[in-house]
């Protein structure tokens, strides 16, 4: 279960609002490769983890993704502070503003609302871990795309931190995948689903 601390994992202090960039960064909140999808994915997959290492890494990375979710929301919140209606119209922020004012609501940059189709929890540990590896790369790619568009260093700084964390998570999931493969038959990894076919003793 979760406790929280009254601090962000990495500080976010943005002084200049910018509604245009806020829409783009919103994608990392509720978009297909965003932190909400990432945390829900890992925290959902951990129940059918076949060994302790995988369960631990899914829980701990999932928790960290919740912290990243908070950071992204903070970035969007600080970018949409003190906006005038003229600025809202000029930046193209008006459609989101109409439905949500400057509230935080999970959607992709293109407007698709966050939904559970953005992730899968397949119950097969090899499939799940490969998806997790891909998810971290997708998140890293999105941050790369955001960094190409962002000019403000106060915005780029936390984004760069988040991007580096995705790469580290990729490493950890790779190691967990290796541990799961080690549990399986060396001649055929797919001979059975270690989360379902045999009663697995947690090591």
């Amino acid at each position, binding site marked *: 279960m979760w406790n929280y601390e009254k601090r962000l994992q*990495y500080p976010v202090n943005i002084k200049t609002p910018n509604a245009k960039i806020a829409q783009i960064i919103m994608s990392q909140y509720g978009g297909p490769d965003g932190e909400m999808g990432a945390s829900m994915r890992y925290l959902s997959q951990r129940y059918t983890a076949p060994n302790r290492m995988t369960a631990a890494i899914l829980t701990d990375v999932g928790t960290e993704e919740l912290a990243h979710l908070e950071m992204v929301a903070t970035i969007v919140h600080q970018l949409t502070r003190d906006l005038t209606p003229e600025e809202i119209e000029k930046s193209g922020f008006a459609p989101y503003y109409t439905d949500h004012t400057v509230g935080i609501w999970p959607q992709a940059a293109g407007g698709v609302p966050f939904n559970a189709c953005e992730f899968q929890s397949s119950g097969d540990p090899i499939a799940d871990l490969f998806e997790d590896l891909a998810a971290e790369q997708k998140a890293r790619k999105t941050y790369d795309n955001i960094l190409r568009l962002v000019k403000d260093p106060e915005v780029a700084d936390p984004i760069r931190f988040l991007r580096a964390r995705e790469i580290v998570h990729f490493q950890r999931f790779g190691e967990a995948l290796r541990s799961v493969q080690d549990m399986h038959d*060396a001649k055929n990894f797919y001979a059975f689903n270690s989360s379902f076919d045999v009663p697995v003793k947690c090591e």
Partner: protein
Amino acid sequence: MNQNYNSMNQNNMQAMRGGCMRTSMNRQEYGMNRNMTGQRSYDSRNINPRQNCGSNRSMVENRGMTERRSCDNNRETTERHSCDGNREMTERRFYDGNPEMMERRSCDGNREMMKRRSFDNACGIDRARSVEIPTGSRKELFCFINEVSFASYEALLYLDTHPADQEAMEFFREHNHLRNRALEEYARLYGPLTISTANEHENSCWEWMNQPWPWEGGDC
């Protein structure tokens, strides 16, 4: 005594900015694994059936000798002599080349020789005890907590997949110790950041909700 803090602080600050601890922890890059034949494989394609990324090479003889070589060269050799029942020699080499050799002879009952060479003999918590928590200003202490917590969390993730790495264990102990001290100090001076450091029975009013919320900004 601030010497320790400054050098550690520099490392942690740099590490935090970079998003990852630049220690031996993150040296190995998954996805660039070489198997025994020097080829890089990402998947389970069996070029050489027993020598592939993630697949264990096992050779079982009558004496019960198993040798596993995984692609990060972490070699674990276990030799058991099951005919005389009790002798077990285990040699484990962790990926930083640190040999840990334990030899137990339970047949003569009491003799147990353990030889461990750890990377750094100083205890992490001892090192941590000599570091002064910066309490000059709220912002400084808050930043210290961010940095030390980041180091702890990074070590935690690493230890999840490398549970036997002694160096990482010491690193974690050291930084977690500092983190706990710093959180207590912060709660004492400025109010709690966590519910476990909230000491509400000293207040007449619920202070927990009055602490600044993280998205308001202005820190570090």
